[in-house]
């Protein structure tokens, strides 16, 4: 009898524990459900056979599908097979089983009901529950805005070049006339004006380059050229205007490279003008040339203010400037190194720097050679 009572007590205990667990489970499910309903991005929970267990309201709203047609359906068969997207198949069937998750995969697809959409896909496999969580962010509008912004900058900078062309032409006409009359002050002022116009042209050109880089429209033209000759040419050009610095070239690569000559030249110009700009008290800049097995390396060394360690990683980012030059002779947008790094990256090259505050910096790039 005693035994019976004890067993019954145990059962009652187990029962209340079970009820407690079920309650907790219900609460957890409700909690998960609340999270899913609150998330603004479309979200799917799939089983391992890729059937939809549940979807959140954002999914139904964005993709104009009904709950009854969604739950229990194979993800690819949703809404007249509109989700049968090759990229998604690859991600779910090939990448997810191996890596348990994938992050920020961009997929473009034309949906019959809502048109073309650019989506950012994120998924995670939850092993102990045999579930796959799939988050779909609709980034169509963001992408469109980015394109519009780039188009706007491209058009605006192109349009800006027209008045700049005539301003520059008239400045030079006036300069010539004053030269003939022997008015040295006017000539000097007009030369300053012309230099400012050149700076403006340079900024417009960089803005154009940026929009082209980001939309992948920048046209590179590869050709074979002698690397040392290009360096020499650029050094001569920069030396003409760098009256306070002596630029010395140390070493030779004795190599030909197959690259975009004009743009590699731009990178060198950028390195050299930065070296001069950020070392107003130094008298020299050294260009180091060397060659590896099938590579050429350039290092442009200045003896200026240097760059703090924390800022070194950011230096190749768009609009970043480590410091304002001591004498702000040439204000800049901080685009030069960003463009330079994009150019080197396009050539499958490498760009880096070594720097010590107060001692100076050396900027390097390496590209392939013959």
């Amino acid at each position, binding site marked *: 009898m005693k035994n019976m009572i004890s067993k019954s007590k145990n059962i009652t205990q187990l029962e209340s524990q079970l009820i407690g667990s079920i309650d907790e489970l219900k609460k957890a499910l409700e909690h998960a459900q609340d999270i899913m309903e609150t998330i603004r991005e479309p979200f799917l929970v799939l089983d391992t056979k890729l059937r939809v267990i549940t979807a959140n309201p954002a999914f139904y709203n964005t993709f104009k599908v009904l709950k009854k047609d969604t739950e229990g359906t194979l993800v690819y068969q949703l809404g007249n097979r509109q989700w049968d997207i090759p990229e998604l198949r690859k991600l779910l069937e090939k990448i997810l089983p191996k890596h348990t998750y994938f992050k920020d995969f961009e997929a473009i697809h034309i949906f019959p009901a809502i048109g073309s959409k650019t989506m950012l896909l994120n998924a995670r496999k939850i092993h102990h529950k045999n579930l796959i969580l799939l988050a779909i962010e609709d980034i169509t509008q963001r992408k469109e805005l980015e394109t519009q912004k780039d188009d706007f900058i491209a058009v605006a900078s192109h349009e800006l070049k*027209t*008045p700049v062309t*005539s301003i520059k032409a008239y400045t030079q006409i006036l300069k010539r006339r004053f030269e003939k009359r022997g008015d040295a002050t006017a000539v000097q002022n007009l030369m300053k004006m012309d230099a400012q116009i050149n700076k403006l042209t340079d900024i417009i050109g960089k803005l*154009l380059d940026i929009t082209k880089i980001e939309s992948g429209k920048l*046209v590179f033209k590869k050709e074979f050229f002698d690397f040392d000759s290009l360096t020499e040419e650029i050094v001569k050009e920069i030396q003409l205007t760098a009256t306070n610095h002596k630029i010395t070239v140390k070493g030779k690569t004795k190599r030909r490279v197959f690259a975009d000559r004009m743009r590699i030249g731009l990178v060198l110009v950028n390195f050299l003008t930065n070296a001069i700009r950020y070392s107003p008290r130094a008298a020299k800049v050294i260009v180091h040339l060397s060659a590896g097995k099938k590579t050429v390396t350039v290092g442009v060394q200045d003896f200026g203010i240097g760059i703090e360690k924390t800022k070194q990683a950011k230096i190749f980012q768009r609009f970043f400037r480590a410091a304002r030059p001591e004498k702000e002779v040439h204000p800049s947008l901080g685009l030069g190194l960003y463009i330079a790094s994009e150019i080197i990256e396009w050539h499958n090259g490498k760009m880096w720097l070594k720097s010590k505050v107060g001692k100076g910096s050396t900027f390097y790039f390496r590209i392939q050679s013959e």
Partner: protein
Amino acid sequence: MSKKKILVADDDLAILDAIELILKDEGYKIEAVVNGQTIQKVREHMPDLILLDIWMSDADGRDICKHLKSTDATKHIPIIICSANRHTKLIAKEAGADDFILKPFELEDLIATVKKYTK
């Protein structure tokens, strides 16, 4: 010696005027075309050199260049294409232009290029 004749086609009046001023100073006779009748004007004046803007609001400099370079009466006339976009250099070459000037230009570069084709 009679003055060499240069036809300048550009849809921007300020640029057109500036080029005219510069080249007149150098002793050239200028025919300015602003409204896209370049081909007719070339036939009419038979210039010694053509300075052609590539993107005009009502005409495409490339088409004009191709047309003039494939027409017997005008194919001998040197054409310099002007553009604010440096990538146009290749396009200019493909269109059959003899040379290319990037806008904004240095006055000396413009004069030197023009002189090269009007010796």
